[in-house]
């Protein structure tokens, strides 16, 4: 059983790595600041909502891009939503790919869109895993009696 200090250190290192590798940006810090006594699980709730939303959007995108006649307007709308959500929680890499994705949509290049879709899926999966790991670490710390670092 790891000590609280060790766990704290582990959490801090993991968090720094997430920031350094641009999985998250300062928006995530802002989110963490919003958690207070009245809303302790705010971050988890928002992130879960993000996961649900993104799953749905990625499915829609896959379907839309596999049509013989691609409706770029719809695709663009979905990507816009995804971009908004990812920027709201600070998922920087996902957001960046969405920007490129939108460019391809505007120029109506199907291959570009498909490529971006694949990239987005990859990044999303990555960040999802990372966040889930983060939450697990946090839970471990809290269970061990420690307190989450104040942002």
């Amino acid at each position, binding site marked *: 059983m790891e000590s609280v200090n060790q766990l704290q250190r582990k959490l801090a290192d993991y968090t720094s790595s997430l920031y350094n590798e641009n999985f998250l940006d300062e928006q995530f810090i802002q989110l963490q600041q*919003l958690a207070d006594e009245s*809303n302790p699980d705010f971050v988890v709730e928002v992130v879960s909502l993000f996961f649900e939303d993104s799953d749905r959007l990625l499915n829609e995108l896959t379907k839309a891009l596999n049509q013989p006649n691609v409706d770029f307007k719809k695709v663009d709308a979905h990507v816009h939503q995804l*971009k*908004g959500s990812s920027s*709201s*929680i*600070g998922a920087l890499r996902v957001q960046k790919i969405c920007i490129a994705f939108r460019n391809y949509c505007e120029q109506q290049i199907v291959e570009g869109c498909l490529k971006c879709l694949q990239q987005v899926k990859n990044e999303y999966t990555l960040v999802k895993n990372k966040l889930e790991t983060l939450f697990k670490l946090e839970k471990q710390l809290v269970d061990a009696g420690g307190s989450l670092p104040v942002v």
Partner: protein
Amino acid sequence: MGSLLRMNRLLSSIVDSCNCIIDPQLPADDLLMKYQYISDFFIALAYFSIPVELIYFVKKSAVFPYRWVLVQFGAFIVLCGATHLINLWTFNMHTRNVAIVMTTAKVLTALVSCITALMLVHIIPDLLSVKTRELFLKKKAAQLDREMGIIRTQEETGRHVRMLTHEIRSTLDRHTILKTTLVELGRTLALEECALWMPTRTGVELQLSYTLRHQNPVGLTVPIQLPVINQVFSTNRAVQISPNSPVAKLRPTGKYMPGEVVAVRVPLLHLSNFQINDWPELSTKRYALMVLMLPSDSARQWHVHELELVEVVADQVAVALSHAAILEESMRARDLLMEQNVALDLARREAEMAVRARNDFLAVMNHEMRTPMHAIIALSSLLQETDLTPEQRLMVETILKSSNLLATLINDVLDLSRLEDGSLQLDIVTFNLHALFGEVLNLIKPVASVKKLFVTLSLSADLPEYVIGDEQRLMQILLNIVGNAVKFSKEGSVSISAFAAKSDSLRDPRAPEFFAVASENHFYLRVQVKDTGIGINPQDIPNLFSKFTQSQALASTNSGGTGLGLAICKRFVNLMEGHIWIESEGLGKGSTAIFIIKLGIPGRSNESKLPFVAKLPANHMQMTFQGLKVLVMDDNGVSRMVTKGLLAHLGCDVTTVGSRDECLRVVTQEHKVVFMDVSMPGIDCYEVAVLIHERFGKRHGRPLIVALTGNTDRVTKENCMRVGMDGVILKPVSVDKMRSVLSELLEHGVVLES
């Protein structure tokens, strides 16, 4: 004689009849009788033929006014002839009938001849007068003929003049005009030779310029003061001159007799003769001389009308020449203007290109240079926070200082370019003036104490504590001026004094156009920074505020800086509607920098647009948000939740909606603020704003509308402003930002986001 003969015959017949017995003893009388017989016969014949001839010829002629007389005359002559004829029968014995006829004839003849004689008394004078009238008419006819001849010649002349004039005036080229004149004159007047002498540039000689027929040696000149020339020049008539005068000696001397020569002056008018509204004056007395020579072998004389023609032509030539001169001038001026135009255009385009190039360069430089600079500065500061050995710390501090300086330089240059573009705007805030001066003093004291300079600050009592203006830039100006004072002083003191300027001290004799009028809401701050430094050469003072210029004395010392500092200060001061200048008594005598700027006085103006940036404690603001009812409209679930969390964290009572219709359904008067995400595609959020405005009116109590957007472009902002939104905030929003936005909204009713 007839009567005698008749008497004779009568007697002889009586004799014969009385004495028939008498012998015919006169055979010689028969011959005489025969002659008389024949003569009578011929007389009768003549008498009869004369009237016939008369009648015949009168009938032939058309006009004969005296027909009656003719009849009378004819009758008279006929009767006379009849008498003579009848006489032929009376030589011998004749019957009584013949006698009767004879008597009748004689009586009639007597009658007619008497009447005719009487009539002739009246008629002959008439006839004679006809003759006189005829003579008179003949004379008149001759005179008319002469006059006709003159008129015709005059008309000819006029025609020639018109033709000549037309020819001369049909061209605007000087040489053509003169040549044409000579040719046409030569043709019209059938001249032997025609020549034109023009005055030389010096004006003391006449040079033979044009001749009609013969090539003359180039440069043939005569002095202008010859008496014959003066004579010609003194009158505007054509003057007949001697063929032997130098101007007429145009042909190689020969054996022939030269014909009559005439010379006339041709005035040469200049542009300067034409005063506005005046006729040209001929006072310049520049004339050319035209010499015309008649053919030598024709014995022709110069007639008056020919002389008149020559004079008229000379005048026309003068006019034509002046027109040509004017045209030349105007063409030359136009060409010059065109050239200048082209040059100016080129210069303008070059200048534009230069400006554009500079702007591009600056834009690039701004971004490209700032990025690494920020990296350097940020990382150096981070590095400072870590554990370092003293040497390392020193190195890092040097790096930091140098990079800060470099960043300042870059900012300076960028500022200047923005100032020049006019795109720089002052950030007007309310700030503490006294504190500002204190800060400047604190910043400069370390450097000054190193150089052992005394720095004193004196603020007058009438300076308000809080003022409205651009705090940052005022600090920049002060730092620059005071920094210069410290930089250029090796010893002594720097004194800073500031006071509220009175109207007399606002007037700087060097800047008479600077008018400063203090008013209720504004006052003018006057700051004087006096140093005991190296001073400034009076010649350099005008250039101080120009960019990049540094006097020799300064350049020799390692003063650093771009040379832009004072130029930027001047620009800032101008933006603050002020004036800045430097006085110095000379090198080594120190200098004083003075500037006056306009600042606002808070509390007196009713402008609510100025946000008050004061460092109030955070919880003061937080309390006002408790229970504040707000509405959030966003179609993205995640960002909706985030915004809600944000506002809830600040204590607001948040309602969320995901669509336009829902928003319109839910919004009430109680909602103080509506946060609207305007980056929703396909939904016209601006319409929602308009509808909300319509529903709740425009004044107090209506919900304030703030747009949240991820777009930084001006179009979005303009659209939001257009529909009357109260603010635009850029996503992502931090907690602090949201806090300040809400406080601004509640205090001023509007958010100003730069």
